[in-house]
């Protein structure tokens, strides 16, 4: 491998799935703020707990 070749990286299957999931949410016309929060949670903050996901899905909305 030449020295200037990029280092081959392993496929990040979770990131692949999360990325496609966000695209599907956009296609399904879910509220844009929900999609943005889920994108932030999964792909930026890497927060995967139930509490993080609940917060992303419902935002500050009170529970019924």
């Amino acid at each position: 491998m030449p020295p200037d070749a990029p280092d081959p990286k392993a496929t990040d299957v979770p990131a692949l799935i999360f990325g496609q999931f966000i695209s599907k949410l956009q296609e399904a016309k879910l509220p844009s703020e929900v999609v943005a929060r889920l994108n932030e949670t999964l792909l930026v903050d890497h927060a995967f707990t139930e509490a993080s996901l609940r917060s992303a899905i419902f935002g500050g909305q009170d529970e019924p």
Partner: protein
Amino acid sequence: MILVDSINIREFRGIRDLTLDFKGKTFAVCGPNGTGKSGVVDALEFALTGTVSRLSGEGKGEVSVRQHGPHVDYRNNPDKARVKVTLTIPSLAKTVTVERSVKTPATARVIPSEPAILAILREVQEHPEFVLSRRELIRYVLATPGDRAREVQVLLHLDRVEQVRVGLQKIANSVERQIPLLTGQTKTATDNLLRALGITELTTENLLAVVNAQRIILGLPSQIELTATSSLKDGLAAQAAARALTIPKAQAQADIKAARDALDEIAGASIGATAAEVSKEVVALAAEPVSATSVSTENFLATGLALIEGEMCPFCDTSWNPEALRARVQAKIEQLKGAARKRKAIEKKLSPIQSSLAKAKAALETLLRYAAVAKPQIVMHAASDFAEGCHAASQTLAAFTSLGDMRTILDALPRVPQPVRDAIAELNAVVLALPEPNKQDAAREFLTVAQERLDVWREAKRRQKTATDQAQRARQISDLYNATSDSVLSGLYAQVQKDFAALYRYINRSDEQAFGAKLVPSMGKLGFDVDFYGRGYFPPGAYHSEGHQDSMGLCLYLALMRHLQGPAFTIAVLDDVLMSVDTGHRREVCALLKKEFPNTQFIITTHDPVWLRHMKTVGLVGGKNGVQFRTWNVDRGPMPWLDRDVWAEIDGHMQHNDVRAAAALLRHYLEYTASELCHFLRAPVEFRSDGQYQLGELLPAAAAHLRKLYRRAKGVADAWKQPDTAAVLEAREVEFGKLVATSQLENWQVNAAVHFNAWENLTKDDFAPVAKAYRDLVAGFACPICGDYLHVSPDRETAEVLRCDCGKTMINLLKKGA
């Protein structure tokens, strides 16, 4: 990503001080059980990741890297336990050293410490699956679909994917679970509103009709429409504020009747029969000890699973491996699924009971408000207690945490205490005694109560709608996530399935050329069926032998790694992974690794010297890229069969005049070496089915065959009219013959020392010529330039050439026209 050039291990596990030179190429570590092979694997994993999978994770109890990583004599001085590896990073054209001490396993000393290098080392650290043991390998093959999915998820780093799937599923379920409760509350609010309005169907038209009739009595304008903020009392506020709180007689009578109906429902045959049926099921559930505790345990574990974050326990600060802990907790939850199914069936039957309890509570609370403003005030403690009891009972049934409490509630349910009915009767008497209100007062009371109940109804509807919307959103998101992950994983597994089958077919091409496999992911499970000689698809453990299962596990691992890491799959450590595979198929495994993974450095351990030979024969492992451990002891660690070590050790014994030890070591070494030489030279030896050959059967055969090869080569050189070559070969044959003659001359002394217990009669001076003769003889089998043993190539069919690995010795064995 990386290639490992060398490793130095000090005071780590069973190793005192060992350096192995991998040269960045595939390397084999061979030796009997307990000679330290796995210590090398542990050390390599530790150097690259800071942990040792054999010492962590499920079933390891009190064993840990920190406490048990150091050599047993250095367990109180973990800083002495160190592993240093030298790596090459081809993409950066850099050589890097990484050194790690057990004292600070999380911190590695990296030289040079450059960001690009550290990034690649982090990448390696995030893929500890480069180490594969047979224990892990067989889990891919023989696991249940759920367990296999978890194992493969760890390998593919899918635990995060699974965590999100479970989280989204739980959110959708939990929001959906609220809907029946909120629907029940809305129904109660609707019933109360209908009762207050005196109508049977709640429509805007019906509502406005009865409300406007009362407003006309009060001289208020009729309302034309009903919006979300409309007030039925519009214009009445000032008049109503001036009035003291009173009991609306007609409404109170209707509410008293509703409360009595609610209590009758609880005490009725239908609820009684349901309660009795559920009570029996709860008793049966409680009679199963595992189920009885598992209901609450499952709740506890499911809650805890979502809280596993970071590297330490938040209570006691004990460090943990979050992935391993999550997998462990999830496995326990799976075991409790049976209890969960029974729980769900009971929960369904509890729904009408909970609805009746909620209705009774709401009805009694309405009466309690009347009692509070009655004159004189009516004390209804029994009714108040019963209402609270209904609420508590409903909560206990919903929580499903104590089967004993649930059974007590269900058995007591049909009984409504008489004091409750007495209190209602007392209130009823007070209400009946109230004077009939005039039309205006009645209209005012009607509008006030109607507005109160409309507000309650609106709030109940709002909450129900919010829950329904949230449930719809959560379910849609969860379904989309499942569809997306299943789609991505199905694509990945389809490729892995194809690759796996091709790899397995290569190893077993002699009899399973049509082999196929099905790898089917579905909702957190991974089905795995394989073709059995065209008779159908079955789980791997159903009909295939243990050896075939081992090779399936290896092929599945290789296929997964190839698709996960692609060109980054540069290193894999295979720790005795093919124990049950026969020699023929191991040979094919060697060929497979060499052919299919030319850019991957394999570090392979095996207890089987035959497999080591196969690795060398097919060229998977270079001539010197292997080490054989001959023995191990706690003071010295593993002792490899290295020439310089053996001869130095023999010299050491002789210096101490310990001829017995020197002779035994020489004999042991010659047995090992003679076996290797016969294999390399393809020397004919009388076959033994037990594989137990003696030195006297092997070494003379190897020596005689080498001389024969020299003579044959000389004949070939003559035929090719190469007199110079022929002369050299003749000289080599003569020289080698002298070495053989010398060693045979001294041979009886070796036998005497080892077999006839005559060692006490030999001195250092007696044995020294023996050792020298055999040392010279062994050297005579090697290339004088590179020192590698000469070997015949190819290793089967017609012998074409006698050569060494470096290619400096290359002796033609094929005559003209052959």
